[in-house]
């Protein structure tokens, strides 16, 4: 199987879906001539031309709405936000237009659009450019929220997202774009709504998604060296949440830690905790603990930023606490 970067896996998914379906087009800032701010759309303008790979002015609200409108009449737009930080300007169109159109029209008008781009922090981009908003979109009935952690999932999930008839919020990671992994060629589809056990283990369940998957896997390695087998569950799709996979694992391990890049208050992890304590109350031998980004705006300084982010040590420490291990 060929090895690709996460970036090229996304590029491959876009290219294949645009070849497959003439209704699919890509629109956003710098996606065409500039080949993408993060080069995810490299080569697409040459292959598909300016009508299907469209550069926009800096108008997140406007072009998100253009995407919704085009989807309302049957096209399949892939709308790129240069980063999800800027999508706050467009959230009205996602929440009030995309997520509600099918319902308000009693099923007459769907919005088969994908909204994608990198979310969360990169390196030293400071407060306004380092935010994880998945909980905002996962809060909304009518939206799907997908966050691939590996190149293979990036390709398979983006293809599913583009073919899905619902508005899909697809959040990538700037820090993931250069990561490499094996990616099946051609028709590789990863269904939406299914979590993936990235590492099996029987002592504790670690639920994570996107960038925290690599963090959890590192933590799991260290824990293994200490004789603790952690099962690492990558949610992959945040909404709808794959409760079965989570509950099945916690039913075996009786202990759980939930890691996410974002802020703690009403984050995705809070929902995972709510689900587990409700559905598996009697299974739990310890409270479910969360590892999140520090509850502060992201500072620019390198050391402070490092301290604010989730890392393997923090996950290991939380696992030891749910195992009531003195360290």
């Amino acid at each position, binding site marked *: 199987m060929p090895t690709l970067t996460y970036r090229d896996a996304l590029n491959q998914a876009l290219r294949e879906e645009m070849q497959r379906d003439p209704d699919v087009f890509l629109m956003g800032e710098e996606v065409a001539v500039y080949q993408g701010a993060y080069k995810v759309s490299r080569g697409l303008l040459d292959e598909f031309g300016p009508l299907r790979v469209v550069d926009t002015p800096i108008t997140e609200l*406007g072009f998100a*709405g253009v*995407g919704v409108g085009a989807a309302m009449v049957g*096209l399949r737009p892939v709308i790129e936000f240069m980063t999800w930080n800027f999508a706050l300007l467009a959230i009205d169109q996602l929440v009030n237009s995309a997520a509600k159109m*099918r319902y308000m*029209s009693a099923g007459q*008008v769907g919005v088969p659009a994908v909204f994608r781009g990198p979310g969360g922090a990169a390196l030293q981009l400071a407060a306004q450019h380092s935010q994880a908003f998945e909980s905002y979109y996962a809060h909304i009935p009518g939206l799907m929220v997908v966050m691939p952690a590996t190149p293979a999932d990036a390709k398979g999930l983006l293809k599913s997202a583009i073919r899905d008839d*619902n508005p899909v919020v697809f959040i990538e990671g700037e820090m993931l774009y250069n990561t490499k992994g094996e990616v099946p060629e051609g028709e590789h589809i990863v269904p939406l709504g299914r979590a993936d056990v990235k590492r099996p283990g029987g002592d504790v369940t670690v639920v994570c998604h996107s960038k925290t998957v690599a963090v959890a896997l590192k933590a799991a390695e260290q824990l293994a060296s200490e004789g603790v087998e952690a099962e690492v569950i990558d949610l992959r799709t945040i909404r709808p949440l794959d409760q079965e996979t989570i509950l099945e694992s916690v039913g075996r391990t009786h202990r759980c830690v939930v890691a996410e890049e974002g802020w703690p208050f009403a984050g995705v992890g809070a929902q995972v905790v709510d689900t587990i304590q409700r559905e598996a109350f009697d299974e739990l031998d310890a409270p479910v603990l969360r590892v999140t980004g520090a509850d502060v705006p992201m500072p620019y300084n390198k050391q402070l930023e490092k301290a604010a982010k989730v890392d393997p040590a923090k996950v290991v420490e939380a696992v030891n606490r749910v195992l009531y291990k003195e360290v």
Partner: protein
Amino acid sequence: MATRTRPRPRGGLDPERADEYRGWLRQMLLIRRFEEKAGEAYSLGKIGGFCHLYIGQEAVAVGSLAALGPQDYITCSYREHGHALARGISARAVMAELFGKAAGCSGGKGGSMHLFDVSLGFLGGHAIVGGHIPLATGMAFAAKYRNTDQVAVCYFGEAAVNNGAFHEALNMAALWKLPAIYICENNRYGMGTALERASAIYDISERACSYDMANEVVDGQDVLVMHAAMERAVQRARADKHPTLLEVRTYRFMGHSMSDPIHGHYRTREEVEDQRKRDPIAVWSQRLIADGLMDEDRIKALDKEVMQEVDDAYRFAEEAPDPEPEALFADVYAEEKREE
């Protein structure tokens, strides 16, 4: 492009088009009677939520929609009963929607502010001011993308032009040469705020200069003038693939919504009385009579006819069943996603 106000077309009405002209009067009467009835039903608690009547602006929807084809796309604000009726959604389906019934054009789930009929290209009533302007722009983009001759028309009030969504959308429509027609129904007020207290310039059409977009100021109380201006805009969109901003001067005879008095803090009774003198239905009736295409009696008969249609719609809406309880969880996601 400079702002132009075209003179009211000169000379007599073309007798060849008599039926079409009478049809416009019928539509305006239907909207008027429908809205009166809706107001009544609202007072009786049969209609809930917000209800924004279109009385006084009928010539805008009727004159402009008459210039469109069945393939075109239409989006409106929450003040869209008139547009829905003029586009051909039945009085029954619209009234049933206001009553929240399953037989409503949005299955009772949308209500007054969210009327839809995809078979007619009527793509909503939208309740976030300015929010549907980018949507219409996207529909125009789709027409260009598919290289069809479709036109996307967007109706909104004059207060929406100060909103960023208007600015962002019109710039893209002009930049990309999209077949879009933006119809600003300038009824002088956004709720209780006069245009002059919300916008730094008072000629909305001049906003088009920021996008080098074709624009016209149109008398919205004269259905013939409205229709002529719309035909020019449709031609520009279909043939030349250029968008247009039409500033249509009109007036809302009723309050902003059913919960707002007709005159109050923000406008005087005198002003409203004065505006009522140019009732679009009276203006058109007189024109048809003057040109011998109608007479008082035939107009009375026509009015009676539409009143019956409205009464029938009212009865239908009252007797129609509510949606099934399961409807609450339907249509959140596409079929196969239903379970989620």
